[in-house]
C-alpha cells in the first residue's frame, strides 16, 4: 500500500491535488458569500469547448494552453449568463442551466470530432470530463501548482479587502475600493481555480470542490478568517485523500473519490459541527425548551 506513496509521480500528483483543494476551498468561500455556488458548476462545464478548441489549434496537449482555452470559454459562458439575465426576463438559474448544457454539448461535438482524427483518441482529452490525476505528467503538475499558489497568494494578500467586498460592497465603495476591480479579480480567481482543477477532478465535479468545503466550514466557525482556513484544510485533505484512494485501483477516476471524501467531511460537519450542527442544535433546542417551560411555570405562579 505504501508503495504507491513512495512513487515520486504519485507524490507530485498528491501534492498538486492537495494544493488545488486548498485553493478551491478558499475560493469556494468567496463564491459561497457571493451566493454563486452553482455558478462554478456552470463555468466548469462551459470550459470544455475551450479545452478542445485549444487542443485543435495547437495539436498538442500543453496544459497551460488548454487552461487558457478553458478560461476564455468559461469567461464567455459567464458573460453570456450575465447578458441573458440582464436583458431578458429569464432568471439566473435558467441562464446558468442553458449555458452549462449548451457549452457542454458543443464541447462534446468537438471532442467526438477530435477523437475520430488519427491519434486523437490518445490525446487523453476524455480525462477532462471526470479527471484523471494519474494521467498528469510533471510539467502539468508544475503548471497547476504555480497557478494554485498564485490564487492562494491573491486571496491571502487581499484578505481584508475580500472581507469588506463580500459583506458590505456599499461600504467598500465608500472607502475607495473599486467594486469593478474586485469583481474582475473574483471572476479571475474563480475561473483559474476551476480550469486548473478540470485536469485532476474533471469538468463535472470540480464545482463540488468549491462548494462542499466552504459549506462544511460554516459548521465550525462564525469568523470569516477561520472559515477560509478550515475550508482550505477540508479542501486540501479531500484532494489528497481522494487522490490517494483513486490511485489504489487501476483506472479509477480521481474526481469522484475527491468529491466523496469531501462529502464525508460535510456529513461529519453537518452532524457534529460546533455551530448549528445537528447535535449542537438539538442540545440547544432542549435547553431553550427547558427555559421556556420554566418561564411559563413562573408566569403561572404569578397569574
Amino acid at each position, binding site marked *: 500500500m505504501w508503495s504507491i506513496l513512495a512513487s515520486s509521480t504519485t507524490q507530485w500528483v498528491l501534492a498538486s491535488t492537495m494544493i488545488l483543494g486548498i485553493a478551491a476551498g478558499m475560493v469556494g468561500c468567496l463564491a459561497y458569500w457571493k451566493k454563486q455556488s452553482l455558478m462554478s458548476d456552470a463555468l466548469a462545464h462551459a470550459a470544455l469547448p475551450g479545452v478542445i478548441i485549444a487542443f485543435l489549434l495547437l495539436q498538442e496537449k500543453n496544459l497551460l494552453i488548454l487552461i487558457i482555452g478553458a478560461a476564455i470559454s468559461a469567461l464567455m459562458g459567464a458573460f453570456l449568463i450575465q447578458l441573458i439575465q440582464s*436583458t431578458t*426576463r429569464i432568471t439566473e438559474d435558467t441562464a446558468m442551466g442553458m449555458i452549462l448544457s449548451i457549452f457542454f454539448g458543443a*464541447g462534446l*461535438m468537438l471532442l467526438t470530432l477530435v477523437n475520430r482524427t488519427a491519434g486523437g483518441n490518445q490525446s487523453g482529452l476524455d480525462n477532462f470530463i471526470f479527471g484523471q490525476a494519474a494521467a498528469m505528467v510533471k510539467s502539468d503538475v508544475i503548471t497547476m501548482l504555480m497557478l494554485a499558489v498564485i490564487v492562494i497568494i491573491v486571496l491571502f494578500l487581499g484578505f481584508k479587502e475580500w472581507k469588506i467586498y463580500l459583506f458590505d460592497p456599499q461600504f467598500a465603495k465608500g472607502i475607495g475600493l473599486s467594486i469593478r476591480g474586485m469583481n474582475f479579480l473574483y471572476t479571475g480567481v474563480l475561473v483559474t481555480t476551476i480550469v486548473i482543477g478540470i485536469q485532476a477532478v474533471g469538468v463535472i465535479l470540480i464545482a463540488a470542490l468549491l462548494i462542499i468545503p466552504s459549506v462544511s466550514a460554516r459548521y465550525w466557525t462564525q469568523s470569516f478568517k477561520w472559515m477560509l482556513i478550515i475550508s482550505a484544510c477540508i479542501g486540501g485533505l479531500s484532494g489528497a485523500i481522494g487522490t490517494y484512494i483513486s490511485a489504489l485501483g487501476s483506472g479509477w477516476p480521481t474526481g469522484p473519490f475527491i468529491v*466523496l471524501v469531501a*462529502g464525508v467531511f460535510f456529513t461529519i460537519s453537518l452532524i457534529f459541527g460546533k455551530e448549528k450542527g445537528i447535535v449542537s442544535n438539538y442540545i440547544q433546542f432542549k435547553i431553550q425548551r427547558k427555559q421556556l417551560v420554566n418561564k411559563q411555570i413562573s408566569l403561572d405562579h404569578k397569574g
Partner: protein
Amino acid sequence: MTYTAWIIITACLVGLTCGLIGVFLILRRMAMMADAISHTVLLGIVVAFIITRELSGPHMLVGAILVGLLTAVLVQWLNSLEIENHASIGIVFTTLFAIGVILIATSVGNAHLDVQHALMGEITFIPWNTVNLPMIGSIPEATAILFLVLIIVVFMILAFYKEWKITSFDPALAASIGIPVVLMHYVFMSLVSVTTVAAFDAVGAIMVVAMLITPAASAYLWTDKLSIMLLLSGTFGVVSAITGYYIAAWIDTSISGSMAFATGIVFLISFIGSPKHGLFAKFIPNVTDNKALNEKSTR
C-alpha cells in the same frame, strides 16, 4: 421502419417531453434542480442494476424516480437546516453523482453500464434494442418507454393544468385554498426524474438539461400565455432534436451534443429576434414595452 426514422422519432419524443416539462421547471425557478436530478439519476440506474442485475426499462424508471425524489428531499432538508438553496443543490448532486460514478468504475465493471454512455447518451444504439409489443409489433425499447413517459407527462399536465399553474405562480394562495402544494412539488420532481431517465439513453445526463431548459426559455421570450408557451416549447424541442440530428449526420459527430447545440441556436434566434423580449425589441424604441421594462426594474 428504417434505422434513421427510429432515431429521429426517438429524438423528437425527447424534444417534446422535455420541452413540456421544461416550461414548469423554469417558471418554478428550478432549472438547476433539473441539472441536479439529471446527474443523480445515474446513481438510481446503477443501484437498480446492482440489485436486479439487468438493465431493463421499468427497473431503471423506478430507480430513477426514487433517486430523483431522494435528491429533492435532501435538498429540501439541507435548506431547512439553513444551507442556502444553491449550496444545497451543489452538495447533494455532486456527492450522489460521485457515488454513482464510483460504483460503476469499481464494482459493477459491466460492459453494459458505461459512464461515458450514460453521460453522453448513445442514440445510435437505440434501434438495435427492440421489444415486441402486442398490436404494434417490434419497436425499440427506449422509444417505447419515451412514448409512455410522454403520455404520462401530457396526461399530468392536462389533468392538473390549473393546479400546476396556481402552484407555480402563487404557492401561498394555492395552499390557502387547499391545494396540496408540497405533494404537487414532489409529483413534479418525479415527472422530471422519469423524463430524465427516459431521455437518458438518447441524450445522456447533461444534454438532457439543455433539452429541458433551453426550448422552454426560448418559448418564454415569445409569448405571455402559458398554454402557448407549452406548445412553443414542445415545438422548439422537436425542431432542436431534428436539427441536431442532421447537424451531427452532416459533420459526423455526437448526436446528443449537437442536439444540445441546436437548442442553443433556437435560443439565440429567440434572444435576438423575439418581438416581445428579444434584443431587437429592446433597442428599437417602443412605447408599450417601456412599461414592462420599468416594472422589471422595480421588482
